[in-house]
């Protein structure tokens, strides 16, 4: 096993880089893949005798702060070979990268949280959370579930999901240890002296239904007679264990929460499912987003998983009135081209009496049923395989206020798929996703420079009359909106009615696209 364990070294506060966690303000461009290492370079003095660039008669760097810009790349040396300036710049950039990477990584001991990886639970317990991460990470388990230490009953236990723990371990904010139970009892024949309790539990689950109870009793006895050990974990070990490659037990515990991603869970190696999800998690998390699972993973009874409030189901009357309104709109649209429409399929237009315009002709030609409001044809034998397209993460912008006790509705819903094994979604898969998404508000008007003129006088609308009040009570008229702005048709068409973010992950690179329900039938051009 790895002897050099990745307990973050404790450094004095002064040498720490002054970047706040979860706030990469300097990252402005999403497409900038390569960091500019010169910005990390220790300014005053490079480590002695290390970099080749420092051997040069030093052109003094860092006298004036230059804000780096993206410009044209010098992608090849000059025709006559590398010039002195080019090689100097190259050396400088390379030296900066080496210096940045060589610097000891660490964080203040005050900020390091200690966690305990409990393979049996598939969670990392955090007895003493430190830092601001835990306002948006982790959830609570009732204390009875595998208490550690001296915590009494009734105290809730903060636990982290594997992806949350991995994120913290990787960024050096958490020192993680692994729970191990060592038996004091002399071993039975054919067994190891110290055996992982987790494995035993896994075997027990594998066994038949009848044997389960006896197994459980035995486990309970073992649990009493074993001594709890906590062994520090390296990052590699954390990855290996938490991504579920070690044993069957871990695999089962790990995979179960992710089963929504896979069609047949037991047939696929769990790494395939977990890896894309955790990559997307880390990617969004590093940008400061708040990310939680859309569907709480299987957890013990009483677990408090932060969830956004359920969307209010429309009442029967609301649904009915929406139907009627929809029907009226359809009918009025249909009526628009009525003067020109013929029932004959061989001659769709019939120019009868009256006045009509091009708009009537176009309306009369709308013969192809369209729009997501049409019911999908239900096949007689629907495919039994589970769709890989299910909302997996709820994501909130960094600026959205977020509390575990009062989770706002998510800003984005993210589906994670493996780009190599899935195809773009079928209509049925998309319809299934869109069915569970809220309708978006219309897009805001394009931002224009504020006019220099005085702001228009605020005219308060007249108080609603009795009739409108009654109508509003009956949901016949929508409630008055604050500011009715005119939506540009293209903006409305591009925004769509509902949207979901798809993260297609191909071997570590994440491609994010937004799929929205189109509303072309609502915005004709004529």
């Amino acid at each position: 096993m790895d002897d050099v364990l990745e307990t973050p070294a404790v450094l004095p506060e002064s040498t720490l880089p002054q970047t706040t966690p979860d706030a990469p303000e300097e990252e402005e461009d999403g497409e900038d893949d390569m960091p500019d290492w010169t910005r990390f370079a220790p300014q005053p003095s490079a480590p002695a005798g290390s970099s080749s660039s420092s051997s040069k008669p030093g052109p003094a760097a860092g006298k004036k702060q230059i804000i780096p810009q993206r410009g044209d790349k010098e992608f090849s040396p000059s025709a006559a070979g590398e010039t002195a300036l080019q090689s100097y710049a190259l050396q400088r950039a390379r030296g900066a990268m080496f210096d940045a990477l060589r610097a000891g990584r660490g964080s203040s001991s005050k900020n390091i949280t200690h966690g305990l990886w409990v393979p049996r639970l598939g969670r990392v317990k955090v007895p003493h959370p430190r830092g601001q991460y835990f306002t948006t990470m982790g959830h609570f388990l009732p204390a009875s579930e595998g208490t550690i230490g001296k915590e009494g009953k009734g105290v809730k236990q903060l636990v982290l999901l594997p992806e949350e723990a991995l994120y913290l371990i990787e960024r050096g904010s958490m020192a993680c240890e692994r729970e191990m139970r060592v038996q004091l009892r002399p071993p039975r024949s054919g067994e190891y002296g110290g055996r992982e309790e987790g494995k035993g539990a896994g075997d027990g689950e594998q066994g038949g239904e009848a044997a389960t109870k006896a197994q459980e009793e035995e486990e309970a006895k073992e649990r009493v007679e074993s001594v709890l050990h906590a062994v520090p974990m390296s990052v590699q070990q954390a990855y290996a264990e938490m991504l579920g490659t070690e044993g069957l037990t871990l695999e089962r515990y790990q995979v179960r929460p992710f089963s929504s991603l896979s069609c047949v869970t037991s047939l696929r190696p769990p790494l395939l499912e977990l890896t894309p999800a955790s990559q997307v998690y880390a990617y969004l998390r590093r940008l400061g987003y708040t990310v939680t699972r859309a569907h709480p993973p299987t957890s013990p009874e009483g677990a408090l998983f932060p969830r956004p409030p359920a969307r209010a189901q429309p009442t029967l009357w609301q649904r009915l009135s929406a139907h009627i309104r929809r029907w009226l709109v359809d009918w009025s649209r249909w009526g628009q081209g009525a003067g020109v429409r013929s029932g004959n399929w061989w001659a769709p237009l019939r120019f009868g009496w009256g006045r009509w315009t091009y708009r009537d002709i176009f309306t009369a030609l709308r013969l192809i049923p369209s729009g997501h409001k049409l019911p999908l044809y239900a096949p007689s034998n629907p495919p039994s395989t589970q769709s890989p397209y299910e909302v997996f993460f709820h994501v909130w912008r960094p600026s959205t206020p977020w509390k575990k006790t009062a989770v706002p509705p998510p800003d984005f819903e993210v589906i994670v798929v493996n780009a190599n094994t899935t195809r773009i979604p079928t209509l049925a898969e998309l319809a299934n996703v869109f069915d569970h998404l809220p309708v978006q508000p219309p897009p805001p008007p394009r931002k224009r420079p504020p006019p220099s003129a005085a702001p228009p006088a605020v005219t308060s609308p007249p108080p609603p009359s009795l009739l409108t009040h009654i109508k509003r009570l009956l949901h016949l008229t929508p409630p008055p909106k604050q500011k009715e702005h005119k939506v540009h048709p293209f903006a409305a068409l591009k925004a769509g009615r509902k949207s979901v973010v798809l993260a297609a992950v191909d071997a570590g690179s994440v491609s994010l696209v937004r799929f929205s329900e189109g509303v072309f039938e609502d915005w004709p051009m004529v």
Partner: protein
Amino acid sequence: MAASVAGPSTPATTAPTKPKRRPNPNNVIYGNPLPILIETPPRTPYTLGFLPFHRSKIINPECSGIYDPLTRSVWVTGKRDVRVLWERGFFGKGSLSRSEPSWLTRRVQQLNGGEVLTAEEVTARRREQRKHFKASRTAAIQKAAQEAEAAFSASLESPASTFELPLVNAPHNVPRPTFEAAASKASGDGPPKASETKEDKGVNSEDEVEKQLRQQPEPLDEDQVENMEHLQLTLQEAFFLAWGLGCLRVLDTESGQYLSLPSLWALCISSSASPLPSLPPTIDECRRPDNPFLIHYATYHHYRSLGWVVRGGIKFCVDYLLYKRGPVFTHAEFAIVICPEYEDPADAASSPFHFQKEPFTWTWFSTINRVNAQVKKTLILAYVTIPAMSRVTEQDLDSPKSLSTYSVREVVVRRFVPARMRD
């Protein structure tokens, strides 16, 4: 438009602040969205609109075309028909032009030695200007790099002097030749500015042609030059014009007769069903709801009926491009990819057509998305459902009635860049 709507009192107030906009001649030339014209007598205050003598009248241009089995397209050769179909709705494409049939104009200009630009010539000229611009930019960058090099070597010789690494700001702080300057230099004494600014747009060059022709001592007329170009319509366009609007007749070269609508329908379906024009498809292949013509026509008709100008999008890896009003006015805003969806998966297994074997992988998708993001078009996946064969009768497939069993649903695709959407 706006001025005519506004009352007579408004111009007095707005006139001092806003310069009067010149009316765009394109609004007149391309004012009709469809080849058929509507003639509505003005509404008089003392009669009612529904009275018989105030009904709208249709003016059908009665265009005609020839079906060409080899290219599976319909050729329109009549000069008037070509103009009508292009100017009212942007149907078809000039066989020797990029889009607007402008070969004859170009040819006449060439023979007259004139200097009036067609859309193709504008593009060629712009490319030339761009080349000039890039060359001068490269030269400027090289000059700046040499200066930086000199400064660097000077700083090496005298260590006391400080040197700021110019690389972070060298190339893009170079005073660059502006594109405008290069453009005006290259193009000489001003071609029509309006034609230059908009890419991919047909140029209304008729006025210039006339002006030009008047200046020539013995100008050739367009009638004196044989027109080698025709307008070619895709089968979807031809069927839309013939069936939907009833303003096109298609001549069959074999029989020498104009095709009736049922035979045109059958012709469109059968010619789309076989991979080779010489290999007629079996009747079973034609009687399938997943015939490529039907799927494409349903999509084409859907967007046409919504008022979009629909044109082919093969240059952008997509099936169709949607223009608001037309390519003369704006760039295409949306790029449509047809994603056929079988209602009954069993139909897909038995299909003789190859399009459903399209990959629809994420690699394929990213390619298309990338290309269209580059040209600032929004990608639309148009999911067209193919009715299950069990619910479509053969009689249905023999008439356009079957079109009502298809349905179109759009999915709008946009990039999601988390780093730019943080607040």
